[in-house]
C-alpha cells in the first residue's frame, strides 16, 4: 500500500526499465553494425593484399637452352614476393598445345634453373612456352619462337656499321651538289649517266667509344660477276675523297677534292658520310662511269683504314664497313 501511495515512483521505475532496454537495444544494433563493417573491411583488406602480391609478382625467363631433349630455362624473380610456378603451357609451331604441371618456388631476388621439363623435343622443333604462377600471373620468354636447332651464338663487334636506309648510300654526277634531294645509289638506272663522272658517299657509324680517323687508303671496290660469267671482275675502284666534295672541271680533267692529310674524323658513336671517287689514292681524278651502255650487278666493298684518335700506339686498323649489293644500268 505504501508503494501504491507513491505513484510517481512506480512510473519512474517502469519508464526507467524501458529506457535502459531501449538504450541497450540501440547499443547492440550499433555494436553489431560496427563489427559487421569491421569484418567486411578486413575481408577487403585481405583481398587488396592478395591483389598487391599478384601485381608485384614479376619473373623473367632467361637462357632458354636449345639443342636439348627437354626444356631447360632459367627464371629470375625480380619482384617483391616469392613465386610458386605451377603451370607450363607448351605450344609447337604446328599448332599442338601441351600442358604440364610444375612445382617450383622462387624467392624474391633469386634465380632458379628449371631443367628437363615439358615434352621430348626434336632438333627440328620450333615452339613457344609460358609459365604460370599460383597467383595467376603468366610469363613468357622474350623471343617469340624458339628454334631447338643448335645455332652459332658467338658475337663479333664491328667498328663501323652502315644503316641500310634510303639516304645511307648516295651519289652525284658532275654539275650536281649534295643539296637535297640526293639520289640513292643502290639502283642506278639512267641511260644518260653513261660516261658521267660520279662521286659516291656512304653514311658510316663509328661504334667505338672513341673518335676514329679515316686514312687515305680507304676505298670502295665495285666487283661485278657480269663481265665474265666465270670470273669476278673489278668494275670500279675508288678511294676516299674529302667530305662534301663535288666534281670540278679543271684543265680538261674532272676532279674531286682529296682527303686532307690529317684524315677524316668520325666522332665516337656518330655517323658521318664518307665520300669515294678518286681513281687512285694519290690523285684527284673523279671516277667515270663506263662510256658504253652497261647493265651490271656489283658487290660493293667499303674498306676502311683508320686509327683511333689519341691512341698512343698509333696502330692502323683495317675493316670492311659494308658490302653493298648495287646495280648500274645505263643502256
Amino acid at each position, binding site marked *: 500500500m505504501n508503494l501504491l501511495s507513491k505513484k510517481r515512483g512506480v512510473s519512474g521505475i517502469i519508464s526507467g526499465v524501458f529506457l535502459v532496454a531501449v538504450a541497450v537495444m540501440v547499443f547492440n544494433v550499433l555494436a553489431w553494425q560496427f563489427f559487421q563493417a569491421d569484418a567486411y573491411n578486413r575481408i577487403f583488406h585481405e583481398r587488396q593484399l592478395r591483389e598487391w602480391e599478384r601485381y608485384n609478382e614479376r619473373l623473367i625467363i632467361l637462357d632458354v637452352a636449345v639443342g636439348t631433349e627437354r626444356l631447360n630455362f632459367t627464371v629470375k624473380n625480380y619482384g617483391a614476393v616469392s613465386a610458386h610456378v605451377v603451370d607450363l603451357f607448351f605450344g609447337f609451331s604446328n599448332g599442338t598445345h601441351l600442358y604440364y604441371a610444375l612445382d617450383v618456388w622462387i624467392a624474391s631476388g633469386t634465380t632458379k634453373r628449371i631443367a628437363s621439363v615439358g615434352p621430348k623435343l626434336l632438333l627440328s622443333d620450333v615452339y613457344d612456352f609460358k609459365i604460370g604462377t599460383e597467383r*595467376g600471373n603468366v610469363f613468357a620468354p622474350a623471343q617469340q619462337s624458339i628454334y631447338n636447332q643448335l645455332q652459332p651464338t658467338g658475337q663479333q663487334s664491328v667498328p663501323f656499321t652502315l644503316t641500310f636506309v634510303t639516304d645511307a648510300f648516295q651519289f652525284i654526277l658532275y654539275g650536281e651538289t649534295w643539296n637535297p634531294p640526293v639520289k640513292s645509289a643502290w639502283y642506278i638506272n639512267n641511260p644518260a649517266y653513261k660516261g658521267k663522272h660520279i662521286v659516291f658517299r656512304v653514311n658510316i657509324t663509328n661504334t667505338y667509344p672513341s673518335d676514329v680517323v679515316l686514312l687515305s687508303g680507304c676505298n670502295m671496290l665495285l666487283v661485278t660477276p657480269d663481265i665474265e660469267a666465270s670470273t669476278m671482275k673489278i668494275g670500279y675502284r675508288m678511294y676516299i675523297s674529302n667530305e662534301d666534295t663535288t666534281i670540278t672541271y679543271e684543265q680538261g680533267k674532272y676532279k674531286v677534292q682529296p682527303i686532307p692529310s690529317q684524315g677524316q674524323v668520325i666522332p665516337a658513336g656518330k655517323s658521318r658520310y664518307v665520300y669515294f671517287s678518286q681513281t687512285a689514292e694519290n690523285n684527284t681524278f673523279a671516277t667515270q662511269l663506263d662510256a658504253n651502255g652497261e647493265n651490271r650487278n656489283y658487290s660493293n666493298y667499303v674498306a676502311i683504314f683508320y686509327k683511333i684518335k689519341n691512341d698512343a700506339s698509333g696502330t692502323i686498323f683495317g675493316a670492311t664497313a659494308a658490302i653493298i649489293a648495287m646495280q648500274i644500268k645505263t643502256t
Partner: protein
Amino acid sequence: MKQKKGISTIVATILTINMAIVMGGIMMAWAMGLIGSYQGGTQIQYMLIGERAQEAIVIENVWFETGTPKKITVFARNVGVREAKLVSIYVGGSSYTPNGTWPYTLTVAGKVALQITYAWASGESYLIVVATARGNQARGEWTP
C-alpha cells in the same frame, strides 16, 4: 467496505500497471523483431559481399586449337581464398557451354581447362569472359 474509493484506486492502479507492462512488452517484442529482421537481412548482404570479395579467378592462357571442328581451350585459375563456381563462359559476347562438367566448382588455387567448340579465325581478336555464380569475372582479349 466503507473505503470503496480506496479499493477502486488499487484496482485501477494494478490494471494501469499491467496494461503498461503488456503494452511495453508488445512494443519491445515488435522492436526486437524489427531489429532482428534488419540484422538478418544485412548480415546476409554482408556475407554475400564478403564471399564475393574472397573469390577471384583469372584466365591464365587460351589455346586456339586447329582441327575439325576448331576448338578454344580456356585455362582458368582460382586465385582467391574461396571456392568459385564457374557458371558462364563468353566468347565474343556469346555464351557457350564447355565440354565436361558444367557448371564447374573451382577449388582454392585450383585450375581448370574449359574447352568449347568455336570456329575461330586466325588474326582476329576474341574477348573471352569467364564468370562465376557470385558475379565475379575474368576477361581478356586473345588473338590466335
